[in-house]
Protein backbone atom coordinates (compact mmCIF):
# COMPACT_ATOMS: atom_id res chain seq x y z
CA UNK A 1 0.00 0.00 0.00
CA UNK A 2 3.05 2.23 0.07
CA UNK A 3 2.12 3.82 -3.26
CA UNK A 4 -1.14 4.88 -1.70
CA UNK A 5 0.63 6.20 1.40
CA UNK A 6 2.83 8.33 -0.84
CA UNK A 7 -0.15 9.88 -2.55
CA UNK A 8 -1.83 10.47 0.77
CA UNK A 9 1.25 12.10 2.23
CA UNK A 10 1.18 14.63 -0.60
CA UNK A 11 -2.50 15.27 0.03
CA UNK A 12 -1.84 15.64 3.73
CA UNK A 13 0.69 18.36 3.15
CA UNK A 14 -1.82 20.25 1.06
CA UNK A 15 -4.61 19.66 3.56
CA UNK A 16 -2.53 20.96 6.44
CA UNK A 17 -2.83 24.44 5.08
CA UNK A 18 -6.60 24.26 4.89
CA UNK A 19 -8.61 23.97 8.09
CA UNK A 20 -9.83 20.52 9.01
CA UNK A 21 -13.42 19.63 9.68
CA UNK A 22 -14.78 20.11 13.16
CA UNK A 23 -14.52 16.91 15.17
CA UNK A 24 -17.72 14.95 15.36
CA UNK A 25 -18.97 12.88 18.24
CA UNK A 26 -18.48 9.17 17.74
CA UNK A 27 -21.27 6.81 18.58
CA UNK A 28 -20.06 3.53 20.02
CA UNK A 29 -21.54 0.21 18.97
CA UNK A 30 -22.78 -0.07 22.55
CA UNK A 31 -24.70 3.18 22.25
CA UNK A 32 -26.33 1.99 19.05
CA UNK A 33 -27.39 -1.30 20.56
CA UNK A 34 -28.75 0.56 23.57
CA UNK A 35 -30.66 2.84 21.22
CA UNK A 36 -32.35 -0.27 19.87
CA UNK A 37 -33.12 -1.58 23.35
CA UNK A 38 -34.60 1.71 24.47
CA UNK A 39 -36.66 2.30 21.35
CA UNK A 40 -38.17 -1.16 21.78
CA UNK A 41 -38.85 -0.87 25.49
CA UNK A 42 -42.13 -2.41 26.43
CA UNK A 43 -42.60 -1.60 30.07
CA UNK A 44 -45.38 -2.79 32.31
CA UNK A 45 -47.64 -0.04 33.71
CA UNK A 46 -45.84 -0.38 37.01
CA UNK A 47 -42.50 0.78 35.60
CA UNK A 48 -41.40 4.09 34.14
CA UNK A 49 -38.12 5.40 32.78
CA UNK A 50 -36.51 8.85 32.83
CA UNK A 51 -33.38 10.30 31.27
CA UNK A 52 -31.86 12.85 33.67
CA UNK A 53 -29.31 14.04 31.09
CA UNK A 54 -31.84 14.58 28.32
CA UNK A 55 -32.76 12.71 25.15
CA UNK A 56 -29.23 12.32 23.80
CA UNK A 57 -27.73 10.48 26.77
CA UNK A 58 -29.29 7.06 26.82
CA UNK A 59 -26.31 5.54 28.66
CA UNK A 60 -27.48 6.88 32.02
CA UNK A 61 -31.10 6.56 33.03
CA UNK A 62 -33.41 5.81 35.91
CA UNK A 63 -36.20 3.31 36.20
CA UNK A 64 -38.98 3.62 38.77
CA UNK A 65 -40.81 0.51 39.83
CA UNK A 66 -44.17 0.61 41.64
CA UNK A 67 -45.09 -2.98 42.53
CA UNK A 68 -48.80 -3.70 42.10
CA UNK A 69 -48.84 -6.76 44.35
CA UNK A 70 -46.92 -8.43 47.15
CA UNK A 71 -45.11 -7.05 50.18
CA UNK A 72 -43.98 -3.91 48.36
CA UNK A 73 -47.37 -2.83 46.98
CA UNK A 74 -47.61 0.95 46.88
CA UNK A 75 -43.90 1.73 47.20
CA UNK A 76 -41.84 3.46 44.52
CA UNK A 77 -38.27 2.25 44.01
CA UNK A 78 -35.82 4.06 41.78
CA UNK A 79 -32.93 2.28 40.07
CA UNK A 80 -30.03 3.97 38.30
CA UNK A 81 -28.60 2.36 35.18
CA UNK A 82 -25.10 3.01 33.88
CA UNK A 83 -24.40 1.43 30.51
CA UNK A 84 -20.84 0.94 29.24
CA UNK A 85 -19.68 1.66 25.65
CA UNK A 86 -19.10 -2.06 25.17
CA UNK A 87 -22.69 -2.95 26.06
CA UNK A 88 -24.02 -5.62 25.59
CA UNK A 89 -20.70 -7.37 26.05
CA UNK A 90 -20.88 -6.11 29.61
CA UNK A 91 -24.05 -5.84 31.71
CA UNK A 92 -25.26 -2.38 32.78
CA UNK A 93 -24.39 -1.29 36.30
CA UNK A 94 -27.63 -1.08 38.24
CA UNK A 95 -28.10 0.36 41.71
CA UNK A 96 -31.19 0.93 43.81
CA UNK A 97 -31.34 4.61 44.72
CA UNK A 98 -34.21 4.16 47.15
CA UNK A 99 -33.17 2.70 50.49
CA UNK A 100 -35.16 -0.48 50.80
CA UNK A 101 -35.68 -3.27 53.33
CA UNK A 102 -35.24 -6.20 50.99
CA UNK A 103 -33.41 -9.55 51.24
CA UNK A 104 -31.79 -9.19 47.80
CA UNK A 105 -30.92 -5.49 47.90
CA UNK A 106 -28.48 -4.17 50.48
CA UNK A 107 -28.64 -0.80 52.22
CA UNK A 108 -26.07 0.65 49.78
CA UNK A 109 -28.32 -0.19 46.84
CA UNK A 110 -26.40 -3.22 45.57
CA UNK A 111 -28.76 -5.62 43.86
CA UNK A 112 -28.38 -9.39 43.79
CA UNK A 113 -29.93 -10.29 40.46
CA UNK A 114 -28.20 -13.08 38.56
CA UNK A 115 -28.59 -11.52 35.11
CA UNK A 116 -26.76 -8.39 36.27
CA UNK A 117 -23.60 -10.34 37.00
CA UNK A 118 -22.86 -14.01 36.63
CA UNK A 119 -25.67 -14.86 34.22
CA UNK A 120 -25.53 -11.79 31.96
CA UNK A 121 -25.63 -12.66 28.23
CA UNK A 122 -25.44 -10.22 25.33
CA UNK A 123 -28.82 -11.49 24.06
CA UNK A 124 -30.48 -10.09 27.17
CA UNK A 125 -31.55 -6.46 27.10
CA UNK A 126 -32.74 -3.55 29.21
CA UNK A 127 -36.30 -4.83 29.16
CA UNK A 128 -35.20 -8.18 30.64
CA UNK A 129 -33.36 -6.43 33.44
CA UNK A 130 -36.34 -4.25 34.30
CA UNK A 131 -38.59 -7.32 34.42
CA UNK A 132 -35.98 -9.03 36.58
CA UNK A 133 -35.96 -6.10 39.00
CA UNK A 134 -39.74 -6.02 39.07
CA UNK A 135 -39.72 -9.71 39.88
CA UNK A 136 -37.50 -9.06 42.92
CA UNK A 137 -40.35 -7.06 44.46
CA UNK A 138 -43.08 -9.58 43.78
CA UNK A 139 -40.90 -12.55 44.72
CA UNK A 140 -38.24 -11.53 47.27
CA UNK A 141 -35.98 -14.48 47.78
CA UNK A 142 -34.32 -15.37 51.09
CA UNK A 143 -32.00 -17.90 49.48
CA UNK A 144 -29.76 -15.26 47.80
CA UNK A 145 -29.46 -12.71 50.58
CA UNK A 146 -27.64 -9.41 50.39
CA UNK A 147 -29.44 -8.03 53.42
CA UNK A 148 -28.87 -10.92 55.78
CA UNK A 149 -31.27 -9.78 58.53
CA UNK A 150 -34.15 -9.13 56.14
CA UNK A 151 -33.64 -12.54 54.55
CA UNK A 152 -33.68 -14.31 57.90
CA UNK A 153 -36.92 -12.57 58.90
CA UNK A 154 -38.56 -13.42 55.57
CA UNK A 155 -37.57 -17.06 56.00
CA UNK A 156 -38.53 -17.46 59.67
CA UNK A 157 -41.37 -15.04 60.16
CA UNK A 158 -43.09 -13.79 56.98
CA UNK A 159 -45.68 -11.86 59.01
CA UNK A 160 -42.97 -9.87 60.77
CA UNK A 161 -41.23 -9.38 57.43
CA UNK A 162 -44.42 -7.92 56.00
CA UNK A 163 -44.80 -5.45 58.86
CA UNK A 164 -41.12 -4.52 58.65
CA UNK A 165 -41.51 -3.76 54.93
CA UNK A 166 -44.60 -1.66 55.65
CA UNK A 167 -42.79 0.26 58.38
CA UNK A 168 -39.75 0.89 56.18
CA UNK A 169 -41.85 2.04 53.23
CA UNK A 170 -43.90 4.38 55.41
CA UNK A 171 -40.65 5.95 56.63
CA UNK A 172 -39.29 4.69 59.93
CA UNK A 173 -36.85 2.45 61.72
CA UNK A 174 -36.42 -1.27 61.25
CA UNK A 175 -33.95 -2.28 63.93
CA UNK A 176 -31.19 0.34 63.87
CA UNK A 177 -31.78 1.39 60.27
CA UNK A 178 -33.85 4.35 59.21
CA UNK A 179 -35.72 4.19 55.90
CA UNK A 180 -37.07 7.18 54.04
CA UNK A 181 -40.75 7.09 53.09
CA UNK A 182 -41.25 5.78 49.55
CA UNK A 183 -45.03 5.42 49.29
Amino acid at each position, binding site marked *: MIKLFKVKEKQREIAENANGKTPVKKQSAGELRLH*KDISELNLPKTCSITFPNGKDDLMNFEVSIRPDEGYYLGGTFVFTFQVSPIYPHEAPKVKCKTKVYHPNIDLEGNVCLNILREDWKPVLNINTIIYGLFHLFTQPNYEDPLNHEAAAVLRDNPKLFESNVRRAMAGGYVGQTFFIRCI
Partner: protein
Amino acid sequence: MAGTAASPSRSRDLDKLLLRPGNLVGPTFEPGTELRDDLQEYARILVVGAGGLGCELLKDLALSGFKNLEVIDMDRIEVSNLNRQFLFRVEDVGKPKAEVAAKRVMERVSGVNIVPHFCRIEDKEIEFYNDFNIIVLGLDSIEARSYINSVACSFLEYDSDDKPREETIKPMVDGGTEGFKGHARVIVPGVTPCFECTIWLFPPQVKFPLCTLAETPRTAAHCIEYAHLIKWDEVHSGKAFDPDDPEHMKWVFSEAVKRAELFGIPGVTYSLTQGVVKNIIPAIASTNAIISAACALETLKIASGCSKTLSNYLTYNGVEGLHIKVTEFVKDKDCLVCGPGVLIELDTSVTLEKFINLLEEHPNLQLSKASVTYRGKNLYMQAPPVLEEMTRSNLSLPLYDLMDKVAKDVIHVTGTTGKNDKKTSCLRKLRVVFKGVDGVTDMDMAGGA
Protein backbone atom coordinates in the same frame (compact mmCIF):
# COMPACT_ATOMS: atom_id res chain seq x y z
CA MET B 1 25.10 -1.18 -3.18
CA ALA B 2 24.22 2.47 -3.28
CA GLY B 3 23.94 4.62 -0.18
CA THR B 4 26.26 5.35 2.69
CA ALA B 5 28.73 2.85 4.07
CA ALA B 6 26.52 2.13 7.06
CA SER B 7 23.29 1.50 5.22
CA PRO B 8 23.98 -1.95 3.68
CA SER B 9 24.55 -3.58 7.05
CA ARG B 10 21.70 -1.71 8.76
CA SER B 11 19.04 -2.92 6.37
CA ARG B 12 20.67 -6.08 5.03
CA ASP B 13 17.99 -8.43 6.31
CA LEU B 14 15.24 -6.08 5.33
CA ASP B 15 16.72 -5.74 1.86
CA LYS B 16 16.26 -9.46 1.31
CA LEU B 17 12.52 -8.91 1.69
CA LEU B 18 12.20 -5.59 -0.09
CA LEU B 19 14.66 -5.69 -2.98
CA ARG B 20 13.95 -9.09 -4.49
CA PRO B 21 10.88 -10.50 -6.21
CA GLY B 22 9.20 -13.55 -4.76
CA ASN B 23 6.40 -16.03 -5.23
CA LEU B 24 4.43 -15.31 -2.09
CA VAL B 25 4.37 -11.55 -2.40
CA GLY B 26 1.31 -9.31 -2.28
CA PRO B 27 -0.41 -8.33 -5.55
CA THR B 28 1.03 -4.81 -5.71
CA PHE B 29 4.58 -5.61 -4.62
CA GLU B 30 7.27 -3.73 -6.55
CA PRO B 31 10.65 -4.66 -5.13
CA GLY B 32 13.51 -2.21 -5.24
CA THR B 33 15.38 0.49 -3.38
CA GLU B 34 12.57 2.93 -4.07
CA LEU B 35 10.22 0.76 -2.04
CA ARG B 36 12.72 0.57 0.79
CA ASP B 37 13.26 4.32 0.82
CA ASP B 38 9.55 5.13 0.45
CA LEU B 39 8.74 2.94 3.43
CA GLN B 40 11.09 5.02 5.51
CA GLU B 41 9.88 8.30 4.19
CA TYR B 42 6.15 7.90 3.71
CA ALA B 43 4.87 5.20 6.04
CA ARG B 44 3.41 6.81 9.13
CA ILE B 45 2.56 4.36 11.90
CA LEU B 46 0.72 4.95 15.15
CA VAL B 47 1.32 2.60 18.05
CA VAL B 48 -1.54 2.68 20.55
CA GLY B 49 -0.32 1.70 23.99
CA ALA B 50 3.21 1.90 25.40
CA GLY B 51 2.96 -0.95 27.87
CA GLY B 52 4.17 -4.53 27.60
CA LEU B 53 3.24 -4.88 23.95
CA GLY B 54 3.80 -1.22 23.10
CA CYS B 55 7.48 -1.28 24.16
CA GLU B 56 8.08 -4.34 22.01
CA LEU B 57 6.14 -2.88 19.08
CA LEU B 58 8.08 0.39 19.05
CA LYS B 59 11.39 -1.45 19.13
CA ASP B 60 10.31 -3.97 16.46
CA LEU B 61 8.86 -1.35 14.13
CA ALA B 62 11.90 0.89 14.49
CA LEU B 63 14.18 -2.04 13.70
CA SER B 64 11.97 -2.97 10.73
CA GLY B 65 12.92 0.28 9.04
CA PHE B 66 9.94 2.47 9.86
CA LYS B 67 11.08 5.98 10.64
CA ASN B 68 7.90 7.92 11.31
CA LEU B 69 6.32 6.50 14.41
CA GLU B 70 4.03 8.00 17.00
CA VAL B 71 2.87 6.45 20.23
CA ILE B 72 -0.08 7.26 22.46
CA ASP B 73 -0.56 6.12 26.07
CA MET B 74 -2.25 7.72 29.07
CA ASP B 75 -0.35 5.83 31.77
CA ARG B 76 2.66 6.59 33.91
CA ILE B 77 5.35 4.02 34.64
CA GLU B 78 4.88 1.85 37.73
CA VAL B 79 7.44 -0.33 39.50
CA SER B 80 5.49 -3.46 38.58
CA ASN B 81 5.93 -2.67 34.87
CA LEU B 82 9.70 -2.97 34.95
CA ASN B 83 9.98 -6.73 34.61
CA ARG B 84 8.72 -6.72 31.03
CA GLN B 85 8.40 -3.13 29.81
CA PHE B 86 12.08 -3.18 29.05
CA LEU B 87 12.40 0.41 27.85
CA PHE B 88 11.79 1.65 31.39
CA ARG B 89 14.18 1.91 34.35
CA VAL B 90 13.63 2.39 38.08
CA GLU B 91 14.35 6.11 37.79
CA ASP B 92 11.54 6.41 35.21
CA VAL B 93 8.83 5.39 37.67
CA GLY B 94 6.13 8.05 37.63
CA LYS B 95 7.01 9.39 34.17
CA PRO B 96 4.66 9.04 31.19
CA LYS B 97 5.18 5.73 29.40
CA ALA B 98 4.77 7.19 25.91
CA GLU B 99 7.48 9.82 26.46
CA VAL B 100 10.07 7.51 27.98
CA ALA B 101 9.43 4.74 25.45
CA ALA B 102 9.81 7.14 22.53
CA LYS B 103 13.02 8.61 23.94
CA ARG B 104 14.64 5.23 24.65
CA VAL B 105 13.96 3.79 21.20
CA MET B 106 15.20 6.96 19.51
CA GLU B 107 18.42 6.72 21.55
CA ARG B 108 19.02 3.16 20.45
CA VAL B 109 17.86 3.18 16.83
CA SER B 110 19.37 6.00 14.85
CA GLY B 111 17.27 7.81 12.29
CA VAL B 112 13.92 6.91 13.79
CA ASN B 113 11.60 9.68 14.91
CA ILE B 114 8.96 8.83 17.49
CA VAL B 115 6.41 11.41 18.63
CA PRO B 116 4.87 10.58 22.01
CA HIS B 117 1.34 11.51 23.04
CA PHE B 118 0.69 11.33 26.77
CA CYS B 119 -3.10 11.38 26.82
CA ARG B 120 -6.23 9.30 26.54
CA ILE B 121 -7.08 7.99 23.09
CA GLU B 122 -10.46 9.73 23.33
CA ASP B 123 -8.75 13.08 23.94
CA LYS B 124 -7.40 13.21 20.40
CA GLU B 125 -9.60 14.52 17.64
CA ILE B 126 -10.79 11.90 15.20
CA GLU B 127 -8.70 13.53 12.46
CA PHE B 128 -5.52 12.84 14.42
CA TYR B 129 -5.94 9.16 13.62
CA ASN B 130 -6.48 9.84 9.93
CA ASP B 131 -2.89 11.05 9.57
CA PHE B 132 -1.51 7.53 9.96
CA ASN B 133 -1.28 4.87 7.31
CA ILE B 134 -1.47 1.97 9.73
CA ILE B 135 -2.57 1.84 13.36
CA VAL B 136 -0.94 -0.83 15.51
CA LEU B 137 -2.65 -1.71 18.76
CA GLY B 138 -0.94 -2.90 21.92
CA LEU B 139 -3.88 -2.57 24.29
CA ASP B 140 -5.34 -4.48 27.17
CA SER B 141 -9.01 -3.57 27.06
CA ILE B 142 -11.99 -4.26 24.88
CA GLU B 143 -13.23 -0.68 25.31
CA ALA B 144 -10.07 0.87 23.91
CA ARG B 145 -9.92 -1.54 20.97
CA SER B 146 -13.56 -0.94 20.22
CA TYR B 147 -12.96 2.81 20.26
CA ILE B 148 -9.95 2.79 17.92
CA ASN B 149 -11.74 0.34 15.65
CA SER B 150 -14.75 2.62 15.37
CA VAL B 151 -12.50 5.59 14.64
CA ALA B 152 -10.55 3.73 11.94
CA CYS B 153 -13.76 2.42 10.39
CA SER B 154 -15.28 5.89 10.39
CA PHE B 155 -12.79 6.93 7.68
CA LEU B 156 -13.98 4.11 5.44
CA GLU B 157 -16.13 5.07 2.47
CA TYR B 158 -17.97 2.82 0.06
CA ASP B 159 -18.69 3.48 -3.61
CA SER B 160 -22.16 3.15 -5.12
CA ASP B 161 -21.57 -0.59 -5.66
CA ASP B 162 -20.89 -1.06 -1.91
CA LYS B 163 -17.20 -1.67 -2.59
CA PRO B 164 -14.80 -0.06 -0.11
CA ARG B 165 -12.77 2.83 -1.55
CA GLU B 166 -9.18 1.73 -1.17
CA GLU B 167 -7.87 5.20 -0.37
CA THR B 168 -10.19 5.41 2.65
CA ILE B 169 -9.11 2.11 4.21
CA LYS B 170 -7.21 2.47 7.48
CA PRO B 171 -5.59 -0.88 8.26
CA MET B 172 -5.11 -1.92 11.87
CA VAL B 173 -2.85 -4.56 13.36
CA ASP B 174 -4.06 -5.65 16.76
CA GLY B 175 -2.02 -7.55 19.30
CA GLY B 176 -3.13 -8.84 22.64
CA THR B 177 -1.65 -11.05 25.34
CA GLU B 178 -2.88 -12.66 28.50
CA GLY B 179 -0.30 -14.72 30.37
CA PHE B 180 0.89 -17.47 28.04
CA LYS B 181 -1.77 -16.74 25.43
CA GLY B 182 -1.92 -14.10 22.76
CA HIS B 183 -3.38 -13.04 19.47
CA ALA B 184 -2.30 -11.00 16.48
CA ARG B 185 -4.77 -9.93 13.85
CA VAL B 186 -4.95 -7.83 10.75
CA ILE B 187 -8.02 -5.66 10.35
CA VAL B 188 -8.51 -4.11 6.94
CA PRO B 189 -11.86 -2.33 7.33
CA GLY B 190 -14.26 -3.19 4.57
CA VAL B 191 -12.13 -6.19 3.55
CA THR B 192 -11.54 -8.32 6.65
CA PRO B 193 -13.73 -8.48 9.77
CA CYS B 194 -13.42 -5.47 12.05
CA PHE B 195 -13.18 -5.68 15.81
CA GLU B 196 -16.92 -5.30 16.21
CA CYS B 197 -17.71 -8.08 13.67
CA THR B 198 -16.06 -10.58 15.98
CA ILE B 199 -16.57 -9.06 19.43
CA TRP B 200 -18.29 -12.29 20.43
CA LEU B 201 -14.81 -13.89 20.41
CA PHE B 202 -14.14 -12.37 23.81
CA PRO B 203 -15.30 -14.55 26.65
CA PRO B 204 -17.51 -12.78 29.17
CA GLN B 205 -15.77 -11.54 32.30
CA VAL B 206 -16.13 -13.81 35.29
CA LYS B 207 -18.37 -12.09 37.82
CA PHE B 208 -19.30 -13.58 41.16
CA PRO B 209 -22.91 -13.34 42.36
CA LEU B 210 -23.13 -10.54 44.94
CA CYS B 211 -25.04 -12.76 47.35
CA THR B 212 -22.21 -15.32 47.29
CA LEU B 213 -19.80 -12.53 48.22
CA ALA B 214 -22.11 -11.31 50.96
CA GLU B 215 -23.15 -14.65 52.37
CA THR B 216 -21.10 -17.68 51.39
CA PRO B 217 -17.57 -16.75 50.32
CA ARG B 218 -15.50 -19.79 49.39
CA THR B 219 -12.35 -18.39 47.80
CA ALA B 220 -9.83 -15.65 48.47
CA ALA B 221 -11.15 -13.82 45.41
CA HIS B 222 -14.65 -13.83 46.97
CA CYS B 223 -13.27 -12.13 50.08
CA ILE B 224 -11.47 -9.50 48.00
CA GLU B 225 -14.52 -8.75 45.86
CA TYR B 226 -16.61 -8.48 49.02
CA ALA B 227 -14.30 -5.79 50.37
CA HIS B 228 -14.13 -4.07 46.98
CA LEU B 229 -17.79 -4.16 45.91
CA ILE B 230 -19.80 -4.28 49.13
CA LYS B 231 -17.75 -3.21 52.15
CA TRP B 232 -16.22 -0.18 50.40
CA ASP B 233 -19.62 1.40 49.71
CA GLU B 234 -20.82 0.60 53.21
CA VAL B 235 -17.94 2.44 54.83
CA HIS B 236 -17.14 5.17 52.29
CA SER B 237 -20.61 6.30 51.38
CA GLY B 238 -20.52 8.22 48.15
CA LYS B 239 -16.73 8.09 47.68
CA ALA B 240 -15.79 6.21 44.52
CA PHE B 241 -13.19 3.49 44.75
CA ASP B 242 -10.06 4.30 42.76
CA PRO B 243 -8.08 1.18 41.82
CA ASP B 244 -4.99 3.31 41.11
CA ASP B 245 -4.91 4.80 44.61
CA PRO B 246 -2.61 2.63 46.79
CA GLU B 247 -4.44 3.75 49.95
CA HIS B 248 -7.72 2.45 48.55
CA MET B 249 -6.10 -0.80 47.52
CA LYS B 250 -4.53 -1.29 50.94
CA TRP B 251 -7.90 -0.70 52.60
CA VAL B 252 -9.55 -3.32 50.41
CA PHE B 253 -6.70 -5.73 51.12
CA SER B 254 -6.99 -5.34 54.91
CA GLU B 255 -10.77 -5.77 54.78
CA ALA B 256 -10.36 -8.84 52.59
CA VAL B 257 -7.92 -10.32 55.12
CA LYS B 258 -10.46 -9.80 57.95
CA ARG B 259 -13.14 -11.43 55.88
CA ALA B 260 -10.92 -14.37 55.00
CA GLU B 261 -10.02 -14.91 58.65
CA LEU B 262 -13.69 -14.87 59.60
CA PHE B 263 -14.48 -17.65 57.13
CA GLY B 264 -11.17 -19.49 57.48
CA ILE B 265 -10.19 -18.94 53.85
CA PRO B 266 -6.45 -18.88 53.03
CA GLY B 267 -4.64 -17.09 50.24
CA VAL B 268 -5.53 -13.39 50.40
CA THR B 269 -2.39 -11.42 49.48
CA TYR B 270 -1.84 -7.84 48.41
CA SER B 271 -0.87 -8.83 44.90
CA LEU B 272 -3.90 -11.10 44.56
CA THR B 273 -6.06 -8.20 45.75
CA GLN B 274 -4.64 -5.99 43.00
CA GLY B 275 -5.04 -8.82 40.52
CA VAL B 276 -8.70 -9.45 41.36
CA VAL B 277 -9.76 -5.82 41.68
CA LYS B 278 -7.97 -4.61 38.56
CA ASN B 279 -8.55 -7.87 36.72
CA ILE B 280 -4.82 -8.32 36.18
CA ILE B 281 -3.50 -11.44 34.55
CA PRO B 282 0.24 -11.98 35.06
CA ALA B 283 2.04 -10.81 31.93
CA ILE B 284 4.77 -12.91 30.33
CA ALA B 285 7.53 -10.97 28.60
CA SER B 286 8.12 -13.59 25.91
CA THR B 287 4.44 -13.76 24.98
CA ASN B 288 4.57 -10.02 24.38
CA ALA B 289 7.74 -10.45 22.30
CA ILE B 290 6.20 -13.16 20.12
CA ILE B 291 2.93 -11.33 19.54
CA SER B 292 4.68 -8.03 18.89
CA ALA B 293 7.01 -9.68 16.36
CA ALA B 294 4.00 -11.02 14.49
CA CYS B 295 2.32 -7.60 14.56
CA ALA B 296 5.41 -5.73 13.39
CA LEU B 297 5.90 -8.17 10.54
CA GLU B 298 2.27 -7.81 9.46
CA THR B 299 2.66 -4.05 9.52
CA LEU B 300 5.68 -4.32 7.26
CA LYS B 301 3.78 -6.69 4.96
CA ILE B 302 0.76 -4.41 4.67
CA ALA B 303 2.91 -1.38 3.93
CA SER B 304 5.34 -2.98 1.50
CA GLY B 305 3.38 -5.83 -0.04
CA CYS B 306 6.51 -8.00 0.40
CA SER B 307 4.27 -10.89 1.40
CA LYS B 308 0.62 -11.72 1.63
CA THR B 309 -0.70 -10.70 5.02
CA LEU B 310 -1.97 -12.84 7.82
CA SER B 311 -5.49 -13.86 7.01
CA ASN B 312 -6.64 -12.80 9.45
CA TYR B 313 -6.42 -13.90 13.09
CA LEU B 314 -3.47 -15.63 14.72
CA THR B 315 -3.84 -17.22 18.10
CA TYR B 316 -0.84 -18.25 20.15
CA ASN B 317 -1.11 -20.57 23.11
CA GLY B 318 1.93 -21.48 25.16
CA VAL B 319 0.11 -22.86 28.20
CA GLU B 320 0.69 -26.54 27.43
CA GLY B 321 3.24 -27.10 24.73
CA LEU B 322 2.99 -24.50 22.03
CA HIS B 323 0.21 -23.98 19.54
CA ILE B 324 -0.19 -21.36 16.86
CA LYS B 325 -3.23 -21.31 14.66
CA VAL B 326 -4.47 -18.90 12.05
CA THR B 327 -8.19 -18.59 11.54
CA GLU B 328 -9.84 -16.73 8.73
CA PHE B 329 -12.82 -15.04 10.30
CA VAL B 330 -15.49 -13.59 8.07
CA LYS B 331 -16.97 -10.12 8.04
CA ASP B 332 -20.42 -9.47 9.36
CA LYS B 333 -21.98 -7.96 6.24
CA ASP B 334 -24.44 -6.03 8.37
CA CYS B 335 -21.80 -4.81 10.81
CA LEU B 336 -22.85 -1.42 12.13
CA VAL B 337 -19.26 -0.26 12.34
CA CYS B 338 -17.48 -1.47 9.17
CA GLY B 339 -20.35 -2.56 6.92
CA PRO B 340 -21.47 -0.43 3.97
CA GLY B 341 -24.99 0.09 5.24
CA VAL B 342 -27.90 0.70 2.91
CA LEU B 343 -27.45 3.58 0.48
CA ILE B 344 -30.36 6.00 0.44
CA GLU B 345 -30.60 9.08 -1.75
CA LEU B 346 -32.85 11.87 -0.59
CA ASP B 347 -33.90 15.35 -1.54
CA THR B 348 -32.89 18.01 0.94
CA SER B 349 -36.56 18.82 1.51
CA VAL B 350 -37.50 15.38 2.87
CA THR B 351 -38.76 15.67 6.44
CA LEU B 352 -37.87 13.19 9.16
CA GLU B 353 -41.43 11.89 9.10
CA LYS B 354 -41.31 11.35 5.33
CA PHE B 355 -37.93 9.64 5.72
CA ILE B 356 -39.35 7.22 8.30
CA ASN B 357 -42.18 6.40 5.91
CA LEU B 358 -39.71 5.88 3.06
CA LEU B 359 -37.86 3.27 5.10
CA GLU B 360 -41.03 1.21 5.24
CA GLU B 361 -41.39 1.30 1.45
CA HIS B 362 -37.71 0.74 0.73
CA PRO B 363 -37.38 -2.67 -0.99
CA ASN B 364 -34.20 -3.67 0.85
CA LEU B 365 -35.30 -2.43 4.25
CA GLN B 366 -39.08 -2.63 4.74
CA LEU B 367 -38.43 -1.16 8.11
CA SER B 368 -41.48 0.02 9.99
CA LYS B 369 -41.75 2.07 13.16
CA ALA B 370 -38.21 3.39 12.82
CA SER B 371 -36.37 5.26 15.52
CA VAL B 372 -33.54 7.38 14.13
CA THR B 373 -30.21 8.34 15.67
CA TYR B 374 -27.50 10.48 14.10
CA ARG B 375 -24.02 10.85 15.64
CA GLY B 376 -25.25 10.61 19.21
CA LYS B 377 -28.35 12.74 18.65
CA ASN B 378 -31.62 10.89 18.92
CA LEU B 379 -33.70 12.44 16.15
CA TYR B 380 -36.80 10.39 16.77
CA MET B 381 -37.62 7.66 19.30
CA GLN B 382 -40.76 5.53 18.96
CA ALA B 383 -40.54 4.55 22.64
CA PRO B 384 -40.55 5.05 25.57
CA PRO B 385 -43.25 7.75 25.67
CA VAL B 386 -40.99 10.21 27.50
CA LEU B 387 -38.46 10.16 24.64
CA GLU B 388 -41.14 10.06 21.95
CA GLU B 389 -42.51 13.32 23.32
CA MET B 390 -39.08 14.91 23.48
CA THR B 391 -38.27 14.04 19.87
CA ARG B 392 -41.70 14.42 18.23
CA SER B 393 -41.13 18.00 17.15
CA ASN B 394 -38.28 16.85 14.88
CA LEU B 395 -40.69 14.91 12.66
CA SER B 396 -41.74 17.95 10.66
CA LEU B 397 -38.16 19.18 10.12
CA PRO B 398 -36.11 18.35 7.02
CA LEU B 399 -33.66 15.53 7.69
CA TYR B 400 -31.01 17.56 5.87
CA ASP B 401 -31.26 20.26 8.56
CA LEU B 402 -31.29 17.69 11.37
CA MET B 403 -28.07 16.25 9.93
CA ASP B 404 -26.37 19.67 10.10
CA LYS B 405 -26.57 20.08 6.31
CA VAL B 406 -23.90 17.58 5.42
CA ALA B 407 -23.91 16.23 1.87
CA LYS B 408 -23.70 12.62 3.01
CA ASP B 409 -23.30 10.74 6.24
CA VAL B 410 -24.13 7.60 8.12
CA ILE B 411 -27.31 7.40 10.16
CA HIS B 412 -28.67 4.51 12.24
CA VAL B 413 -32.25 3.31 12.47
CA THR B 414 -34.02 0.77 14.66
CA GLY B 415 -37.34 -0.75 13.78
CA THR B 416 -39.13 -3.91 12.79
CA THR B 417 -38.92 -5.68 9.45
CA GLY B 418 -41.96 -7.55 8.34
CA LYS B 419 -40.77 -10.03 5.75
CA ASN B 420 -43.02 -13.13 5.45
CA ASP B 421 -45.40 -12.05 8.22
CA LYS B 422 -42.64 -12.59 10.74
CA LYS B 423 -41.77 -9.37 12.57
CA THR B 424 -38.21 -9.09 13.68
CA SER B 425 -36.58 -6.09 15.23
CA CYS B 426 -33.40 -4.79 13.70
CA LEU B 427 -30.83 -2.04 13.87
CA ARG B 428 -29.51 -0.84 10.51
CA LYS B 429 -26.84 1.47 9.24
CA LEU B 430 -27.83 3.77 6.39
CA ARG B 431 -25.66 5.86 4.10
CA VAL B 432 -27.73 8.92 3.43
CA VAL B 433 -26.76 11.02 0.42
CA PHE B 434 -28.57 14.26 -0.35
CA LYS B 435 -29.17 14.93 -4.03
CA GLY B 436 -27.72 18.06 -5.53
CA VAL B 437 -25.39 18.69 -2.59
CA ASP B 438 -21.73 17.76 -2.55
CA GLY B 439 -18.47 18.82 -1.01
CA VAL B 440 -17.93 21.38 -3.77
CA THR B 441 -20.92 23.41 -2.63
CA ASP B 442 -19.26 24.30 0.63
CA MET B 443 -16.16 25.53 -1.13
CA ASP B 444 -18.25 27.57 -3.57
CA MET B 445 -20.03 29.20 -0.70
CA ALA B 446 -16.78 29.89 1.07
CA GLY B 447 -15.42 31.49 -2.08
CA GLY B 448 -18.53 33.56 -2.64
CA ALA B 449 -18.77 34.80 0.89
